């Protein structure tokens, strides 16, 4: 069977309905495992004490905020290039969850920063570019809501999403390019992690849980959008 079979909203709708519960179940199991390892198994940090445990939601939420934007911009670009209806629907379905994880990353980072840095907020490059990401998500949602015709809303939103994608490498490399209060990456694909194995395990489990959660809610939301637009 061709994968293009599922490019149509009508054929994707039942597939999304079948997949969503599995991803929701996986998210729940991974979150229980991640919270158990993060809160009960991982040791206390020698320098930061117990407050470091904020990273088990802060870091996965920050990763998801950027990853969701890249996927959203990818769907938007596909929609512009091939004029496919499902692409715009997927971009619309991803935006609220992306905005939510961006807010969570900012909120938890702020609550971690107060006891660690001595301040809730500082206008350094990492924090400011993440705040701009939140505004990009909110701008995308507001722009789509302001245009009555869904296909025109998809095209306008797609342009904003694609232009805004330039902010993602800026967020990622901000701690390299500028002298920021925010520390550099502790986890990288090119070198060994700089944290204890149990800490890394808890963080990766929570990242996978947030990923599965995102897929589940996006599939449910895109089904709502398909029903709203196509009856």
């Amino acid at each position, binding site marked *: 069977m061709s994968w293009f079979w599922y490019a149509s909203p009508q054929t994707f709708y039942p597939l999304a309905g079948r997949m969503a519960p599995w991803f929701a179940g996986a998210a729940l199991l991974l979150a229980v495992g991640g919270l158990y390892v993060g809160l009960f198994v991982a040791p206390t940090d020698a320098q930061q*004490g*117990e*407050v470091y*445990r*904020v990273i088990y*939601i*802060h870091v996965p*939420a920050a990763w998801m905020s950027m990853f969701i934007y890249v996927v959203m911009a990818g769907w938007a670009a596909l929609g512009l290039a091939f004029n496919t209806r499902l692409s715009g629907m997927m971009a619309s379905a991803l935006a*609220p*969850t992306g905005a*939510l994880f961006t*807010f*969570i990353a900012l*909120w*938890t980072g702020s*609550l*971690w920063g*107060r*006891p660690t840095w001595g301040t809730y907020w500082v206008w350094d490059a990492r924090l400011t570019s993440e705040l701009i990401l939140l505004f990009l998500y909110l701008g995308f949602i507001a722009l789509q809501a302001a245009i009555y015709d869904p296909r025109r809303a998809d095209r306008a939103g797609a342009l904003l999403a694609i232009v805004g994608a330039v902010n993602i490498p800026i967020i990622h490399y901000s701690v390299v390019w500028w002298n920021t209060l925010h520390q550099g990456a502790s986890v990288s694909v090119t070198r060994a992690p700089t944290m204890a194995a149990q800490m890394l395990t808890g963080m990766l489990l929570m990242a996978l849980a947030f990923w599965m*959660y995102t897929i589940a*809610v996006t599939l*449910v*939301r895109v*089904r*709502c959008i398909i*029903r*709203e637009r196509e009856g």
Partner: protein
Amino acid sequence: MSDYAFYLWGSYSVTFLLLFLEIFFLLKRKRETKA
């Protein structure tokens, strides 16, 4: 733990409250679109 309880539980509680609210409003939207 008590020194940092506000910051730690302030992070976890708001995160899970927001995720719960997203699921609640999404299921509400699902019910409305099916009606």
